């Protein structure tokens, strides 16, 4: 697993208080990991800070799963 994926996973685990092995490629933040819609906003904020990138609102809406987040950040970072 890449360094970016590890860092994203750490943020998700810390923020949502979920087990690390639940955070898999297709895990949906809302449906599988118990996030509410405001949690997803906070996750995006945390990704922006961790990776020093800006995630516009329309892009943030497309980030639904752990895999989506890793893919977006790899392309943006």
């Amino acid at each position, binding site marked *: 697993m890449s360094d970016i994926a590890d860092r994203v996973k750490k943020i998700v685990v810390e923020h949502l208080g979920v087990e690390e092995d639940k955070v898999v490629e297709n895990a949906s933040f809302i449906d599988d990991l118990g996030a*509410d819609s*405001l949690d997803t*906003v*906070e996750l995006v*904020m945390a990704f922006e800070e961790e990776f020093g990138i800006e995630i516009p609102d329309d892009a943030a809406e497309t980030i639904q799963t752990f895999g989506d987040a890793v893919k977006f950040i790899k392309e943006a970072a």
Partner: protein
Amino acid sequence: MTDLTGKTALITGASGGIGGAIATALHGAGAVVGLSGTRVEPLEALAGELGDRAHVLPCNLSDMEAVEALPKQAAEAMGSVDILVNNAGITRDNLFMRMSDEDWQSVINVNLTASFKLCKAVMRGMMKARWGRIVNITSVVGATGNPGQANYAASKAGMVGMSKSLAYEVASRGITVNCVAPGFISTAMTDKLTDDQKSAILGQIPAGAMGAPDDIAAAVRYLASMDAGYVTGTTLHVNGGMAML
């Protein structure tokens, strides 16, 4: 006593009577205050009176670029914005049938849109801190209506709806969003009224007197305090009983 030591507060319209009283009350409770307003001189004078823990942050809220820059300037000066008081407001009174689009839009822009932008900009820091207080200063006329003030009343009622919706969204993050709705308060604005106008107004106020800026400041200080942590989405009417809502 309310203790806001270590908290930072941004107050718009701090050059006016009510805004100045709010800033003084929060500062007196120990907060660091950011004084915003269009007129620099009264802001500097107020900062001089308050002494330490007061920062002057001039901003014209009808200039949307300046509105967007203000939260950043406040965070740079104070380190954070824990408490936001949207107090600044303008009026462009006219009979509805004579109200121009510009009269309408300028009041909505300054009173409602600038408040929206400031709330949004400070929300990130409050969400991270899991603590925040927003107090929006509305008006009794937002609830009752007032002839000649369709734009102003709409902007103030709009702030109430915005505050309630935001309060819903961020309550779980330790952030409260409330309104304080003043009735008639003695300020430079009411000093211009004639004696006849004043007595007509007083006839509608069970308390028999206009309120003072400090009456509003005390309500804001309460809503900004730790004590008010379970109070959110509400409007505290401070009007001497003229409208019991």
